[in-house]
Every structure is written in C-alpha cells, then in structure tokens.
C-alpha cells in the first residue's frame, strides 16, 4: 500500500519501532547522517545503519546487509532507503526477503519497479519523502522552522 497522506505516514511511524537505514553514512555532511542522527537522538526509533563500508556510526553497529540485520534482530518495521534510484529495486527485494513491514524511499529515490515490488509484497510504501521531516511534522519541530505542517488542532500536544 502506497501511503499518500500525512495521516497515513503518521500512523506508520506510530506503529513502528525499528528502522533499518540502507545507505546510512558516517559522513556528517551527508543527508543520511542528518536523518540517522536526528532519529537516534530523538529516541523515537531504534535506528540501525545498513552499510557494508562502515562498522558503526556514532557507536551504533552497522550491518553489511538487510539479511544480516534480520538474522540477528528479526524483521525491521521500516527499511529507510538512501540509495540511487537505480539501486532501489534490489533494496526492495532485500527488504521483502528480510520481512520488513514498510519501505520508505527518501527524497529523490523514485523507482517505479521498486515501488511496485514492495507494494505487491504487501509492504507499506512511502516515496520521495523524508522520515525526519515527517517525524518533525507531528512533534512540533517542523513548526519551529516556520514550515506548514498541515496540523490544525485546539488540543494541547502531549509532550
């Protein structure tokens, strides 16, 4: 199922605990490091790098593949994809094989075949969105940057 609305993405994040981040980089200027660092320090998700080129990021063990991750930790709730769009179908196959419940393609990772594979395998699919931004949309962070979250409520946010 492709999640088109902010409400659907929120539900996915609310019911998820583990995020396996394919292509997470230890380089602090890379977007993937931004997202890794944000999710980790917020403590909302248990986030794990999937990157054969690095042993760990900020003390968190990195796995060489989704299969290696799943063998030790079980299926991840969300596979978050920071890879070239051309590599996305392969990542989708590996996510399906690892038993992932959802696959999240970050900004610019747009590949029709990958989307179709994941969708047909029953995964929840998010395309061309950032999990950091979507997380911040509902925790007040995005509002502090003057961004239009679309959140309208007369209820006090639980801190």
């Amino acid at each position, binding site marked *: 199922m492709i999640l088109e609305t902010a*409400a659907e993405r929120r539900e996915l994040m609310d019911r998820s605990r583990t995020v396996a981040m394919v292509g997470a980089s230890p380089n602090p200027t890379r977007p993937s490091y*931004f997202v890794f660092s944000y999710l980790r320090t917020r403590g909302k998700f248990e986030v794990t790098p999937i990157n054969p080129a690095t042993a760990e990021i900020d003390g968190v063990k990195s796995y060489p593949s989704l299969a290696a991750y799943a063998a030790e930790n079980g299926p991840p709730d969300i596979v978050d994809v920071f890879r070239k769009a051309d590599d996305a179908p392969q990542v989708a196959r590996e996510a399906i094989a690892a038993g992932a419940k959802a696959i999240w393609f970050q900004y610019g990772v747009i590949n029709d075949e990958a989307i179709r594979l994941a969708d047909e395998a029953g995964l929840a699919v998010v395309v*061309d969105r950032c999990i950091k931004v979507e997380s911040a949309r509902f925790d007040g962070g995005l*509002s502090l*940057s003057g*961004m239009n979250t679309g*959140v309208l409520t007369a209820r006090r946010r639980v801190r």
Partner: protein
Amino acid sequence: MSDRAFGFRTRALHAGTPPDPETGARALPLHLSTAFVFDSTEHAAELFALRTYGNIYTRIGNPTVAAFEEKLASLEGGIGGLATASGLSAQLIAILTVAEAGDHLVASANLYGGTITQFSVTLRRMGIETTFVPGGDVEAIRAAIRPNTRAVFTETIGNPNGGVADIAAIAEVAHAAGVPLIVDNTFATPYLCRPIEHGADVVIHSATKFIGGHGTVLGGAIVESGRFPWGAGRHPLLSTPSPGYHGMNFAETFGEYAFLMRARAELLRDVGAAISPMNAWLLVQGLETLALRMPAHVANAQKVAEFLRSRDEVAWVSYAGLPDSEERERAARYLPLGAGAVFTFGLRGGRDAGRAFIEALQLWSHLANVGDAKSLVIHPASTTHQQLSDEELVAAGIGADTVRLSVGLEDADDLLWDLERGLAAAAKVAAVRA
C-alpha cells in the same frame, strides 16, 4: 488526526497556533527572548549543524515568529514561510537565496518604486542585473530570459497602477526556461489571490500592509510552494556544496525544503533583517481577521472607484474592479473576490489640482503607506516614486496627475463626502488654469 482540508477562515485562526504545549495557553505566547538554552552540548551541536529542529537565536528563528510563518504559509498554500523585518528585506533574501553576482533577473516594470530601486540600484551594485519588462508582457518576459536568469518577478496587483499580472502565463514561460516565478502578493493578500495556486513558486509579502491591517508594525514574509526543482542544476547556490554552511548541499539535504532552509540558515542569518517577535505576534492577530477585513476594504474601494468614475473632475480611474477596466478579465480570473483596495486615478488639472485635492481632504490621511484600516492618499510622482526617472515613471504607468488611494474601513458615505470636498478644491484650481 484527519486529512480534512480546512477552510481559509479556520486556517487563519488555527494553523501554526495550536495551544502552547508547555502551558496550555490558548492565545499565541509572545516569546520576547533573544536566545534559547540548549539541553546539552550534543543538542547544541545538532542544532547548529541543522540536524535537529529547535530554537537558537531570534535572528534565525523564534517560536512566535514561526507561528506567523506557518499561519501565512498555510493561507498561501505553501510548504513553509520565512518572516523578515520588512517586505523589502523579504524580497532581498528571496533573491539572494537564488542569485549572486553575475546572475540576472527579469521583472515586470509595473512595480512598487522601492522595488524598482532595490533591483536597479542596490542589486545591480551587487552584480545582479535586472531586465524590466513593460506591462508584464508575457512574450517580452520570455524573450528577456537568459541562460543566467535565476528568477522572474512580478506583483499580483501592480503598485500603484493596478495592473493585474497573468500569473499562470508568466509561470509557464518561466518554468519552460527552468526559472522560478516570484510574486509579490502584498496588495491582494492570500484572501483575494493565492499565486501558488496559479503556478507561482515563491510569494513575497510586505505584511506591514493588509496582513497587519492597522498601520502599526513593519514585517515581511516569504512563502515557498515546495514544488520548484531547485536541485535541477539551474540554481547552483542550492544544488552545490555551500561554503556558507560547511559544504552543505541544500537541495540534496532538505529536498522540497531547500529554498526555505537556505533562505533562513544563510541569508536571514547573514543579512540580519529579523522581525521582532512583537511584530510577528501582532501580524498573527492581523491574519486572524484578514477574511473579515478584506471584503470590507474591497466593498469600500468599489464604491469609491465608481464614485470617482462618475465625476467630471476625474480624467481616469485605474481600478480593475470597474466594468470598463482593461484589467477586468484578468481580475475576474485571479481576483474573483475583488480587485483589492489600492488604486490610482488622475485629476484634470494635473499636478496643481492634485496638490489642492490632497490638501482639502479631512478624513483621508496623506502619507506613504497602504493597507491601513484607515483610508490613505498620496501623490506618487512626488513621493514614493520620486527616485524614478521620467522614463521609469512612464514605464511604471505613473503620470504627474496620478493620485493613489488605499481605501480603508470607514463608512463609505463619509469617504465619498470627503472626496467630494477634495474634488471641489481641485476643480477650482483647474478652472483658474483654464
């Protein structure tokens, strides 16, 4: 949470201003604090690196200011906003986010005089050149775009001559060349026109005008659509590593938020034109009632325009809401709820009649501003547009006889009564001259 698409009035009251999570305060808290404490050294480092969201220093962001930004972005249908000290600083920051020395802009010639001067003098001195296109001619805009053009600029309703921009057609021409369209929507406000719905990419406001609505505070704002492909290569300031932010590639890092993030993290930071939280707080109060005030402004403007149109002392009235206006068709498309409340007219008898007219008025305030709740009047050739050469005046559609009105919220009959007195004084001068 639901995905209901809330109406304009609901968003004006609720977007960006939920109850305060700390205190439960229902009204927007006014955070008059220059700086904000960090939770830890790690938190501070994450904030400065833009890896997490939060408050650092009010020159870069402030929770009260952010509420104004989000509310306005919601009303304009944009992805987010950025507030500044004034409309002119909003414009400067928007342009410096996409252009640098050696770059080029294309702009309508029918603009606020201060904008023309900012482009033709200050930006030119900084190495950014502007080609002005008379009358917002779409084909002339297409022809003026060069390989180094970084943006096309227009006003929804031109100041002061009231021309209505063909936003959709200009956006199409700009996009065909890979260039964004920046629209100054000050005179229309998002209540009368939402340029992003017609294809604009960036919207600029002098919030000092109808958004504040009471002639009390200065403020400016930028709203961005989130749709323009900033990473496509036409805007290297956004798509290559920035020396202003330790090599960050904004388009790659922030995706659809790249423009607004660079505008804040580099330009607002370095230009320093931050809005006071006090002003942002007052502008939020203004936005809450925008949808109530604008129809009243428009209704009075329509009455005043029709009155002037019927008078022999008046040579012409340039209000897009009049049935015989050349702008009528575009006004019907882009301004279906009314053509705003600022327009010009010409008095028979020229400059001297204009002076006598203004000096005979009792209720209309003679000053250089628009968008106050009170009615305002000015003679542009001797004030707001006096920096312009004769050629620039003609190009901007302003004559020596032009008088600009900003129609306020008084009783319409009282406004007409006062104008009647002004016209009588002008007629005396015109008779002596004849």
